[in-house]
């Protein structure tokens, strides 16, 4: 073991958490564990922690996620179904020892006592070459085409201000850390404005703490960790949130729902009480009504202000809703969409 590995082994373990269905309740407060650092991207992680069961439909996404971790890497399955594709993964059933298991797994990796996991998927492009010209551009002159499944950017009508920008269709989720776990959205973006939405997989009925999620989205990760302390010192937390200007940071009227509440009102409710109130009457709304026309950051705030059950209803409604459905796997310029992000 080199001195560098020795020093590195004493750092907090960078962990990327892939939340599955029925993730253990303790999984939401992992950021409070000593010696563990929850990271936002698999590229920064050494340990992939799969918490709960990943449904069969999402296993290919898990494989892609796994291969995005840099070596040396290891996988810990926490109350999760064992998967044959990652044979060396460490399995944990109880909740108490998870921190210790993660720390020990990382130490073994750096000491060379544990072999770094190989890729699950073959090292080849996920989509085949479909271009026409020498650079795969294919379409009209220098434009168009889908080299390796990635559409060349093409301008499209804009729904907001008439500024025709390139439109881009891709799947996002189900493991994006700021997304409700399990949710896979096929989004068409122009710049960072959402033009079309289709839910290809609904979110799990998880107990994701929404206040912490919203605080993180507003650049307050430390306050988010504080909010996960089980309600102790609630007054101090409320005072710090007030001081941070978080309420003012949320645009008024953003994400208004049939019950009259907007994101700011829902955030207020979460700050006042420790529970995430469920929405009233989301039944006649679809995801498109809520997200289309919003810029990325605002859209993510909206998604994090809605409880899992209501989101599931919105996703179900989206299936029958023309306004929100993308053109079935192809972006408006006729290209196949990108193969996914943090999946």
């Amino acid at each position, binding site marked *: 073991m080199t001195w*560098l*590995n020795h*020093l*590195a082994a*004493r*750092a*907090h373990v*960078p962990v990327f958490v892939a939340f599955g269905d029925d993730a253990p309740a303790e999984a939401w407060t992992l950021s*409070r564990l*000593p010696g563990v*650092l929850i990271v*936002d*991207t698999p*590229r*920064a992680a*050494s340990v992939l922690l799969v918490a709960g069961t990943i449904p069969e439909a999402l296993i290919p996404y898990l494989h892609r996620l796994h291969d*995005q971790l*840099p*070596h*040396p890497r290891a996988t810990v399955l926490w109350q999760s179904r064992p998967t044959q594709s990652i044979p060396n993964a460490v399995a944990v059933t109880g909740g108490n020892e998870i921190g210790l298991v993660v720390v020990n797994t990382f130490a073994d990796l*750096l000491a060379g006592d544990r072999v770094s996991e190989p890729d699950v998927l073959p090292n080849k*492009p996920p989509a085949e070459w479909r271009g026409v010209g020498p650079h795969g551009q294919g379409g009209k002159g220098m434009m168009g085409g889908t080299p*390796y499944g990635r559409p060349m950017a093409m301008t499209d009508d804009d729904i907001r201000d008439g500024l025709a920008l390139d439109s*881009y269709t*891709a799947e996002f989720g189900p493991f*994006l*850390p*700021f997304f409700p776990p399990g949710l896979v959205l096929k989004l068409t*973006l122009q*710049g*960072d404005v959402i033009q079309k939405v289709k839910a290809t997989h609904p979110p799990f009925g998880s107990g994701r703490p929404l206040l912490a999620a919203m605080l*993180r989205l*507003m*650049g*307050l*990760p*430390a*306050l988010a*960790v*504080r909010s996960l*302390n089980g309600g102790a*010192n609630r007054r*101090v937390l409320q005072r*710090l949130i007030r*001081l*941070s*200007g*978080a309420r*003012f*940071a*949320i*645009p008024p009227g953003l994400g208004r729902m049939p019950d009259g509440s907007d994101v700011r009102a829902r955030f207020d409710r979460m700050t006042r009480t420790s529970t995430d109130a469920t929405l009233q009457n989301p039944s006649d709304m679809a995801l498109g009504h809520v997200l289309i026309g919003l*810029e*990325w*950051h*605002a859209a*993510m*705030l909206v998604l994090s202000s809605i409880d899992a059950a209501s989101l599931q209803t919105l996703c179900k409604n989206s299936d029958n809703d023309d306004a929100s459905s993308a053109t079935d796997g192809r972006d408006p310029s006729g290209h196949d969409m990108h193969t996914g*992000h*943090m999946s």
Partner: protein
Amino acid sequence: MTLLAVFGLFVFLMASVWAAAAFDMACRGWVSGLGARSADRPLRVAAMWLTQQRLTTEAPDRMNGLLSIAGYLALAMVGLAMVPLGPDMALIALPTSVVLWGACEALVVVVVFLHGWSQNAPLAMIGAYRYVAIGLPIMLLSMFVLIAAALPAGSLDLRDIVTSQRDLWNAIRQPLGLPLFLLLGLSLTLRGPFNYADSVDLAGGTSVESSGPDRLAWQVARLAMLTGFSAVAATVFLGGYLGPVLPSPLWLALKTVMIMALVIGLSHMAARTPVARMMGLIWMILLPLSFADLIWAGLVAF
């Protein structure tokens, strides 16, 4: 002598990067309620990143990626090098050093954009564009504030700006100046309420695809820019090296550390608003405020 000064500058820069990282981690511990003792140690984190594999997307713009990191670091060093350490003691002794700093600010927007561009990934690209949208008006704000600070000195030379504060610091003479300039600092170092490039809602934005040594280098560059910015802020608003008893470079270092702590504290405690709302805030409130600062400085100077 120059070589020794360059070496000293580099040592100070690296020491301050370490100190800033340690304070940042401790701050996180305090605000989260877990306590500073729960915080990680910068050298261990650096070692951890160094042991990680460098992974990229299939076709990253490798040259521009490296250029962005090196450029960010170089701009931080230029900022630090033009700060006077004592009377007539500055590595880059330029009669128009304020203009050079302005150029550094503008180039930060370019290097951050390049960092996002070079990853070949959509979330990184969104971070890059968003940063440009906010970086440009914030720079206008900084220009007004810096010109106001140069007015009492009647010069664009940082050395003259320091000597013009012999009786009264600009932070007191122009009360709006430092608070507004600190906002620029948050933006230049991609922190807290102005971190539109590397934010959580983009899973790390321009850094989303960085791993291992690349991630370490980018974080070091960010903290180096924090040092460069803080030294310039301490010089322009807190009288730089001026102070009794202690040697002048020590005064400058103390004031620099103070500004750094202020920026780090702010970044943990202030919420970030969506870009469109921030754009409105900058154009309709902050820019008029910076103009008021300039008018105020003009009136006081006469």
